[in-house]
């Protein structure tokens, strides 16, 4: 009778432990999922940190180029200030108004003077 009783108690204890066991399992899987998420976040963070570092390097390079550009602009400004106020352009032949000038020959279909 004692044995039977103990067996029943063990069964009862086991049954009562099932929810707890389940909870532990769930916790364990949640923990695993959480670990995975943390790992993913860590990877993303590391990637962002690397990109940020590259961007920082590019920005530094741009700043150097901007400095060079500023020096070039200053040089041009200085040169421009030494240019004359007006520039004489080469003359372009313009069709003059009024009567046609005297010519040396005439291109015609007839061959006669025009």
């Amino acid at each position, binding site marked *: 009778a004692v044995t039977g009783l103990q067996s029943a108690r063990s069964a009862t204890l086991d049954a009562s432990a099932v929810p707890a066991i389940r909870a532990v399992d769930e916790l364990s899987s949640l923990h695993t999922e959480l670990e995975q998420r943390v790992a993913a976040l860590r990877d993303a963070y590391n990637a962002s940190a690397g990109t940020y570092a590259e961007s920082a390097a590019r920005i530094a390079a741009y700043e150097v180029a901007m400095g060079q550009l500023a020096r070039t602009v200053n040089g041009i400004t200085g040169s421009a200030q030494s240019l004359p106020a007006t520039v004489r352009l080469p003359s372009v032949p313009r069709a003059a108004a009024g*009567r046609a000038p005297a010519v040396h020959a005439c291109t015609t279909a007839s061959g006669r003077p*025009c």
Partner: protein
Amino acid sequence: MGSPLRLTVVGAAEAEAQAAWEAVMTEFEAAERAMSRYRPSSDLCALNRRAGSGEPIPVERRLRIALAAADRAGRVTRGRFDARVLADLERLGRSDAPAVQTSLPAESTAARRRPDRAGSTRWLNVVGRSARIALSERIDLDGIGKGLALRWAWHLVGALLEPGVGALLEAGGDIVACSPSPDAGPWRIAIEDPTVEISTRPDDGAGSSSTALPQPMAVVGLDRGAITTSSTAVNRWVVDGRVVHHLIDPATGEPGGAGLLAVTVSAIDPAWAEVWSKSLFLAGRAGIAAEARRRGLAAWWVATDGSIEMTPAARLVTVWSASDS
């Protein structure tokens, strides 16, 4: 051909100028014997008489070059230049007598395109290396023949004159020249007004260094090269009550150049200036500007309303223009 010739030389000795003139006369006579359609004894007439027979005959050097040039001009202009328009001219009643002067030609009627001209077959058959040639159809080399004669004569003039001597050679309104002119600058060349009737112009065969003749459409400064004009001002006549002219559109067999009276082209070579003046004319007023600009040509054209237009390349060498006065 059979055009009046004029050679003006600046800064050369009399004997040198005379030698150049004799070379020009000799070369043009040789070109006539080879390419004239108006001499029954010419090499071209002999070739034309055998056209279509398939019988090749030996051909003189000048004519051989002219045939090749005409063939190439047809390909470069995509068929607008076609030496085979002779049959169309004769069908339209073109005679060798002086043209009947009438009112300006009416607008070309919209003729149907001839399907047999599309992708046309070769009309020139050269047999081996023996310079024996046969034609599939009779041809006319008038315009390009004059241009080639000018080219060849100009080469002789250049060889006979000292460097730095200016000269102008004119053949029936087609001109080739090099500076300096008598005024020490570029030669000033007038582009005739095609709306002025021929009968009202003085017949000054001697020419002069200055002129008080009817106003031209434009004056061009020609430093080095050629300038030619294709126009309906002279070669027009009446057929069945309608006025036609000699500038035939090969695609239709009818007078072309809708909306135009004359086209002038300046180029380094007189033969190609002639080819382009004709080809651009056949583009008509609607197409000439785009075609001339695409080809990079210095071209002027007079429309049927009497206005003159020109390409930017032409504007650069235009000294005076009726449109600006």
